[in-house]
């Protein structure tokens, strides 16, 4: 059996890569994908712990995270489409109207 911390380490790596993606990319779509990657990494830890402790709740939680992610993606993509329509760009550095 593969020890749990192998999975944990892997998910830490994936999560960091996702975070990196969020930080460095300006394409809103790729930023979004990176966020999905981070979610996945988190899911992986949960499933890993679920197996370690023999509990279903971890998996249940993952299920809900997936559902929420699906909802989030739907709304998020719709937002991106709307923004693209009005501003003709999906570069997140162009979306700086909140500048103080």
């Amino acid at each position, binding site marked *: *059996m*593969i*020890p*749990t*911390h*192998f999975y*944990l*380490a*892997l998910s*830490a*790596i*994936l*999560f*960091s*890569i996702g*975070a*990196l993606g969020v*930080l*460095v*990319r300006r*394409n809103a*779509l*790729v930023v*979004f*994908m*990176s966020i*999905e*990657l981070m979610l996945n990494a988190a*899911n*992986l830890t949960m*499933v*890993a712990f679920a*197996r*370690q402790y*023999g*509990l*279903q709740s971890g*998996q*249940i939680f*993952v*299920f809900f995270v*997936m*559902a*929420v*992610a*699906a*909802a*989030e*993606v*739907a*709304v998020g*993509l*719709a*937002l*991106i*489409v*709307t923004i*693209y329509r009005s501003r003709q760009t*999906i*570069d997140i550095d162009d979306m700086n109207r909140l500048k103080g």
Partner: protein
Amino acid sequence: MTFELVLFFILAAIAVATAVGMVLSKNSVYAALYLVTNFISVAIFYLLLDAPFISLAQVTVYAGAIMVLFLFVIMLLGAEKIAPELNWRDMAIPLVLAAALMVEAGLLFVQRFSQPFTASADGAAFADPMSMSVTLFVDYLLPIQVTGVLLLVAMVGAIVLSKPEKKGQA
């Protein structure tokens, strides 16, 4: 080195590689495809972790539905390429931070959770689809319903947001 371990490392390599590929690829269609591969490899991890239900959900929801959505949007907007985007100078701080995060998280996990593996004897039985569904639809009935409503709301929201704007309305 059992077969499982070998499989794990191969898959881990694929997962890390595809993740890096996604972050770095210039064309967002490629990025999406990398991500799909990554998701599928994670799905196999789930199988290894005795979570067949989640694994399948991963494939259908993430690799299937969500990514298709991404691809649609990419195609729709024609936004495959945004040039020039990446430059190493800007990436310096993020890279350092990401590396720090990776190290810290890894250390934390190893430090806190490196007890011996204690999976229950019945192995896969605790999370077979049957018992999962029972749990989901009995103990978690309300959350399931709420999630359904959430999805409905998201759907309505998505429709409203992406509706063509009427003239004279902001």
